[in-house]
């Protein structure tokens, strides 16, 4: 039978034809509705109530949202998270790009290196690595032992509020493998003839990178940037494990999601936590939107090349 799409098909016929399709979709649909959309709608509702896990929620309007801005720990969690995003994302991206460019120069055993650098991204968010980090940066840890050999006196990197967040930033930058692999794929797409032409015109390696490679790579940079910013805003596990769930020392690693978790499951303030979750969604949406708007000024897609 040939598939015929015609306006003459009645609604009933089309519906009957699509039933098997929806049946195949059913498992996924149930998941989407039951595990994603349903809880989201509920959480939006809870964010306007005083839901405290065991009580019957009653409507409190915008109270949770307004309370956020008078909560010093909430503001601290915002500060910590923004600092984390602002520092770790550019560092991670730069690192990933630099390594990708190095690896792209036709090294022997490229696959091995690629895998090697990618491994931290697979492990990085895990509990085991967070525990390892604790060992490395503890005051009797590996880092201080190495520093000791060099005659430098270390400190309790994780147990002091001045440095604790930096250990988490290092942990994130160390996971540069995922954006690196994407960069590498992007670099492979850049045609050699363009670069050769530039070389013949007298552009040195540095100029070729800035004038040719980077603009052609900009859609990939953009893609990585959007993903990494979203990921960094949502960071949770490392801070949870390394600070023992507290966000300490002295709230210096109190990530947004960690404070949300504390309010929800430590203090049972589900309504408040739900409000926090929606504000985070809003923040991420704003950042992503901003990215797309600003992206127009620096992201270069090949197909618009003629017009520019």
């Amino acid at each position: 039978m040939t598939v015929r799409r015609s306006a003459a098909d009645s609604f009933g016929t089309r519906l009957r034809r699509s039933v098997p399709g929806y049946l195949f979709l059913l498992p996924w649909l149930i998941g989407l509705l039951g595990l994603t959309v349903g809880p989201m709608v509920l959480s939006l509702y809870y964010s306007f109530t005083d839901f405290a896990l065991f009580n019957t929620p009653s409507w409190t309007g915008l109270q949770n949202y307004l309370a956020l801005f008078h909560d010093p720990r909430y503001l601290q969690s915002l500060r910590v998270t923004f600092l984390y995003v602002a520092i770790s994302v550019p560092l991670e991206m730069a690192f990933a790009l630099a390594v990708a460019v190095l690896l792209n120069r036709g090294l022997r055993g490229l696959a091995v290196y690629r895998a090697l650098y990618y491994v931290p991204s697979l492990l990085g968010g895990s509990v085991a690595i967070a525990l390892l980090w604790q060992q490395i940066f503890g005051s009797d840890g590996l880092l201080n032992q190495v520093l000791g050999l060099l005659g430098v006196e270390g400190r309790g990197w994780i147990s002091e509020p001045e440095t604790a967040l930096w250990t988490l930033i290092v942990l994130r930058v160390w996971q540069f493998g995922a954006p690196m692999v994407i960069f590498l794929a992007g670099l492979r797409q850049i045609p050699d003839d363009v670069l050769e032409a530039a070389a013949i015109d007298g552009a040195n390696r540095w100029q070729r990178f800035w004038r040719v490679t980077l603009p052609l790579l900009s859609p990939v940079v953009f893609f990585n940037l959007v993903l990494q910013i979203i990921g960094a805003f949502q960071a949770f596990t490392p801070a949870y494990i390394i600070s023992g769930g507290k966000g300490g020392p002295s709230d210096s690693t109190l990530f947004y999601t960690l404070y949300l978790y504390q309010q929800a499951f430590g203090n049972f303030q589900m309504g408040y936590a739900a409000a926090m979750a929606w504000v985070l969604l809003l923040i991420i949406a704003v950042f992503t939107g901003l990215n797309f708007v600003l992206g127009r000024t620096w992201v270069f897609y090949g197909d618009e090349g003629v017009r520019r």
Partner: protein
Amino acid sequence: MNPTTFSRRTLLGLGAATATALVLPGCSAKSGPMRVAWYGPDPVTKAINNALQAWKSNGGAEFAPESAPFADYWDKLATQTSGNNAPDVLRMSMSYFSDYAGRGTLKDLGSLGINISGLDPEVAGSGTVDGKNYGIGQSSISYAMYVDEAAVKAAGGSIPQQGWTWDAFAEFAKDYTGSVQGSFGSSDQAANFQLFEVFARQHGTDLFAEDGSKLTVGRDTIQEWFQYWADLRTAKAAPPQNVTGEATAIEKSLIATGKAPLQFGWVQQVTFYQPLVKSPLTVLPVPQGEAGDLKGQFIKGLDLWCISAASKHPEDAAKLIGFLLNDEAAIKAIGILLGVPPSKKARDLVSAEADSAGARAIAYVEEIAGKVGPSPQPWPKGYGELLTGFGRIAENIGFGKATPASGAGEFVELAGKTLGK
């Protein structure tokens, strides 16, 4: 029909089956074996597992054990309870008891016939709220300090029979510091809300009003407490904040690493530290305002066995609790890991092991029993939040991000927001 191709009907059937399989686990009634949950470090988990083995070999009903460290346990229990999926038998701490009992998540044990005839009445009734018994005390416990007497003697110090006064303790700690390279006279207890409760009672007030609606301890007392430990840190009698931050786990505690000669905690916890310290730990009352006046301390059942309101096995659960409290094999397996056993029979069974840390803990509680003050009311709803808040504020002071005065103010404010909701 070709048998290797799926007919339309088979496919539809498969789809329906898949969908059903996905939906069913979500709504079917849970009818597995009775679940038993508790918190505590490894030794506690081993002990309770042994007691549960005794239950099993006595022909007790089937069960599934769940255990977790203290902090994780509460995250998990909160989630399970809100999902109507709480364990049947659960260990409950006084820190969260009012949160759970006050929200109707625990069963009234009154009609379930658990044998509590041999139990000390105060412990048996420590879970009673408005005439309903939501939990049976597992033990009676009191706050204490454990001192490595050999280390103190080696440093040329001595231990007063009834413990120190706060002033004498500060002197002792200053003198001890530096007697051994890199050591401190005391660990920093500024963040210890439970030791602070004793301190507050020594200053004449309980922490909370009887009905739990507000803080009764004065702001000046809180400030004095934070100042006391700030002074010890300044004098290097207690370690700087970053050292304290890394010494929270039992095996990393200063007493376990030989950096301090003493540790504070609930009396039974001496059995967690003893294996890590070579010489025997002496169990002492915590420092006092006036020498020998132990009115600030109290003896109370602070950990309870409870049955969740949603339990599908209340009878078996009640039988198991009765077994854990009364059976000889269970009592011996648990020892004093949950605290000093709540009945005379159990105490005699456990202290039979002469000169164990457990026997010393029991002797300590018996010794101070006539001297302590009256027990406070069950800790109020929101206690858990205050417990962590107090620690956080103390930490801020330790790092110089707050002063004892501003920290005391912050705590009073937090209590105002948290209590009486």
